[in-house]
């Protein structure tokens, strides 16, 4: 096989080792610009003296890199000239694993990708499988609304985790404790519903694993009553604080056209003023039946991204209240014998049901040939699932379009020309989950 690509170094190389053309290419690749555009840049010294710059390494084990992100920064004094994220430290081949697991088992795999919003991962995988099976129109109403409830609560818990880590990264250490405290309230509800705090494997092809437990409504109401005043505390602690604003405003600015070109989605894209939310513009589940606002920013800076996430928690609470009112009675999973195992009671009285149950869990169900890409709005942006099926019970290829993986490409762009102290604020505002970046 002929290979034209040379497997070059992953690291940022010092300028002295690069030819002018290589440097241009690298600036272009780091900034995600074409060579022609990179050549036009005149805002920074293009060729600073080698002895005035240094390349430093940040991570992979650094408390504010949200896991195992490694950044190589080229600094001139305190100014970041170049930055290159180096990823892969958490790569466990989940897409390869996805080819070994049946569609029934696949949820256990995808739920571990974005561990801060596992239910959204399961949801997109289940929706892609259902589309391949052709049953996406037959999912019972209650299942759809339950999925929405869990998805929105997960968005809240994920954004609360962001509040905690963003506060911690910028020195508001008490915020870390507060954010985690509130997130725990939501996780406690998840534990009651799914049995686990994280990695639930609760949303499954065809519906959900179980119905909501008795008393779920009171638990959700308790969270909804508790959170607004806590969020106001956040406003007092952070939003209005001059120190907080100074630290975030004007930091890590990105323009709408840059965000679109880089493929950024979610709060990063919305912070630039682009109103794009798949819940509104490509509605799935029953998002077209609830009333909510899309929060957009105007400056595309780290403060906008913080404010968007804070207000998205409020919007999610608004959606959850409507879900509580509209939650229909009925079945929580499709009664399609092909996909759904028989209920436990039937297994005791029917041999066929026992065999059926056994076959679904050992062999899985066959999914017709075809390929499909389904995307939903995760807390971090568009999470997509591309599945190609060859008609067997395991996906022929299962690919997850991870929002963090794409969003992390904005880092070099946002950091260029900024201060090294702001680098942490920028990483934090992108809110990457490294489990999802590396998969």
């Amino acid at each position, binding site marked *: *096989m*002929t*290979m*034209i*690509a*040379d*497997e*070059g*170094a*992953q690291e940022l190389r010092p300028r002295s080792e690069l030819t002018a053309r290589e440097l241009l*290419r*690298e600036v*272009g*690749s780091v900034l*995600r*610009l*074409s*060579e022609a555009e990179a050549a036009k840049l005149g805002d920074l010294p293009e060729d600073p003296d080698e002895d005035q710059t240094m390349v430093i390494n940040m991570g992979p084990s650094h408390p504010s890199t949200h896991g195992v992100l490694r950044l190589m920064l080229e600094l001139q004094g305190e100014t970041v000239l170049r930055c290159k994220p180096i*990823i*892969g430290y958490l*790569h466990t*081949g989940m*897409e*390869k694993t996805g080819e*070994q697991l049946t569609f029934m088992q696949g949820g256990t795999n995808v739920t571990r990708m974005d561990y801060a919003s596992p239910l959204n991962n399961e949801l997109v995988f289940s929706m892609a499988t259902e*589309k*391949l099976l*052709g049953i996406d129109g037959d999912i019972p109403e209650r299942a759809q609304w339950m999925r929405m409830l869990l998805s929105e609560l997960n968005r809240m818990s994920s954004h609360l985790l962001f509040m905690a880590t963003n506060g911690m990264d910028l020195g508001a250490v008490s915020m870390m404790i507060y954010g985690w405290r509130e997130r725990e309230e939501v996780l406690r509800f998840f534990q009651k519903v799914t049995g686990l705090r994280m990695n639930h494997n609760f949303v499954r092809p065809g519906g959900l694993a179980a119905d909501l437990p008795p008393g779920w409504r009171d638990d959700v109401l308790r969270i909804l009553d508790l959170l607004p005043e806590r969020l106001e505390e956040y406003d007092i602690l952070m939003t209005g604080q001059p120190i907080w604003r100074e630290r975030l405003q004007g930091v890590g600015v990105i323009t709408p056209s840059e965000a*679109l*070109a*880089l*493929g*950024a*989605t979610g709060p990063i894209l919305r912070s630039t003023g*682009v109103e*794009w939310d798949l819940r509104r*513009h*490509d509605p799935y589940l029953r998002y077209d039946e609830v009333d909510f606002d899309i929060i957009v920013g105007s400056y595309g800076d780290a403060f906008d991204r913080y404010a968007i996430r804070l207000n998205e928690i409020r919007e999610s609470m608004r959606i959850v209240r409507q879900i509580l009112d509209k939650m229909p009675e009925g079945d929580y999973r499709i009664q399609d014998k092909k996909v759904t195992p028989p209920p436990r009671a039937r297994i005791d009285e029917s041999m066929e049901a026992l065999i059926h149950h056994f076959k679904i869990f050992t062999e899985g169900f066959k999914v017709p*040939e*075809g*390929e*499909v*890409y389904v*995307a939903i709005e995760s807390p971090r942006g*568009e999470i*997509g699932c*591309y599945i*190609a099926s*060859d008609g067997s019970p395991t996906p*022929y*290829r299962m*690919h997850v*379009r991870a929002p963090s*993986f*794409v969003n*992390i*490409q904005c880092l070099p762009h946002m950091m260029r020309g900024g201060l090294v102290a702001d680098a942490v604020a920028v990483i934090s505002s992108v809110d990457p989950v490294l489990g999802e970046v*590396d*998969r």
Partner: protein
Amino acid sequence: MTDSPEEQTEEVVEEVAAPEPEMFGCPMTESRGQLVLHVARDRYLDVAKQLADEGYAMCVDLTAVDYSKYMDRPLPASVSPERFEVVVNLLDITHSRRIRLRTQVPEADATIPTLFDLHPGTEAMEREVFDMFGIAFDGHPDPSRILMPEDWNGYPLRKDFQVGTIPVQFKGAAS
């Protein structure tokens, strides 16, 4: 190829009966209601440019599939199956519509032009496809491995890269 030649001719006859729908001269199909464009490799860049002008200005996803164990997949009659397929999902946010490009890439010459100049956001995704499938992107500014270590041998998401049969590789570790 697992199909016998007879079965294949039957399929072709069926598909030729109806005229193939097309866009920019590329056969267009629907997969579960989603628009799929089968683009030849030499027109890949050109079609992506034309689609960008049509409004599909955002490349949300770029991935590949190794079809070496599933060569008899359903494809339009005019597209001959190759081992690899590069799959690009484009999004038009003004009209909220999506289109998917599928391009056949032969094993003997596993290269395809890069979309980087058109959609800079494909940088990491193309590196991932190179890392996982060994498909080279012609003109890519940084053709290095992204997830695997840079001295890794083989391309993990290829179907002939077996799970569990290769000893774990670690840099500098005594073997």
